[in-house]
């Protein structure tokens, strides 16, 4: 699935940026300047279920629409991150040391239906 636009109702990725300066964290986080806390939101129609990351494909959607046998499966389908990457942080810890770390799976790059 793609990025959310104004009127998107199906599963999509919504971009959300947390500016460290805005929340008063720029004094202890050296880099980066903010956190791209993107998230997944939207409906997962039956024909999009079971194809995370591939739901945007027309052929996959049609195939799933034909294969979908029971309506109950739609209740369990969820719009979730299908591709994530780490957040690299350079910061001062409580002892004034400088720490660089990569926190895994913090940034959502793509969403899809389970």
């Amino acid at each position, binding site marked *: 699935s793609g990025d959310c636009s104004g009127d998107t109702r199906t599963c999509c990725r919504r971009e959300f940026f*947390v500016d460290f300066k805005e929340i008063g964290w720029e004094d*202890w986080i050296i880099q980066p300047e903010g*956190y791209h*806390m993107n998230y997944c939101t939207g409906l997962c129609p039956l024909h999009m279920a079971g194809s995370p990351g591939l739901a945007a494909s027309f052929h996959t959607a049609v195939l799933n629409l034909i294969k979908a046998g029971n309506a109950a499966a739609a209740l*369990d389908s969820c719009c979730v991150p299908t591709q994530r990457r780490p957040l690299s942080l350079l910061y001062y810890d409580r*002892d*004034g040391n400088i720490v660089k770390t990569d926190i895994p799976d*913090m940034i959502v790059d793509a969403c899809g239906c389970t």
Partner: protein
Amino acid sequence: TSKGVQCPACGLPTPAPAEQRDALMALAKQSILSKLNLPDRPNVTQPTTRLRALLAALRRMRVQRATVAPGTPHGSGTPQGLQGYEILSFAEPGSSTSRRVHLHFSFTQELAGNTEILQATLYLFWAFPGPGTHRVTVRLLQPDPTGLNVTVANETRLEVQRAGWATLDVGRAVQKLFSQRMQKLTVELEVEEDHGFPLLAGHSDSHWPFVAAQARARTRRRVRRR
């Protein structure tokens, strides 16, 4: 979600934009602090005074990496999925005489408990020691569990012939420190002759001693085995 329950990302009504924004901000803060094992945001008192030291340290480490392993990509070498850390701990000066200097390095308790050290290097800058060879003894001191006595974990004799950066592998000492959930490493430097100390001349920020350590988060399996 459990069977039959609608997915929260799909079904819940969208809150008001301001309310949603506040919730996301709070979630972002909580998420970052939790992943860094911090109970609260650190209170940094004088970060800018260390900026020059930081830049010099990073520059120095880049040179060291290029010399030791040309072409090797940067990074902590941690397996995928495990959180890796690179830590720069700058020295806090302790007691000193004309022949002896103590330097203290502190590591945060949260990091000491949840990570294992892969390697650690002590960087010292010798400033214009003058003509001839200067012998310096570097001792790594560790306090016992009571904190009353210290033991010498390692002793190395260095011969300083010229000004510049010198490095010393302190990996095992810092590993031991972390395995005992201790926070402080003390380095004692001692010169043989009373000709003035070659370290920290001029108290230059950019030549401040530091320890560069690489660490990674402990795996769950290892925690269980311990």
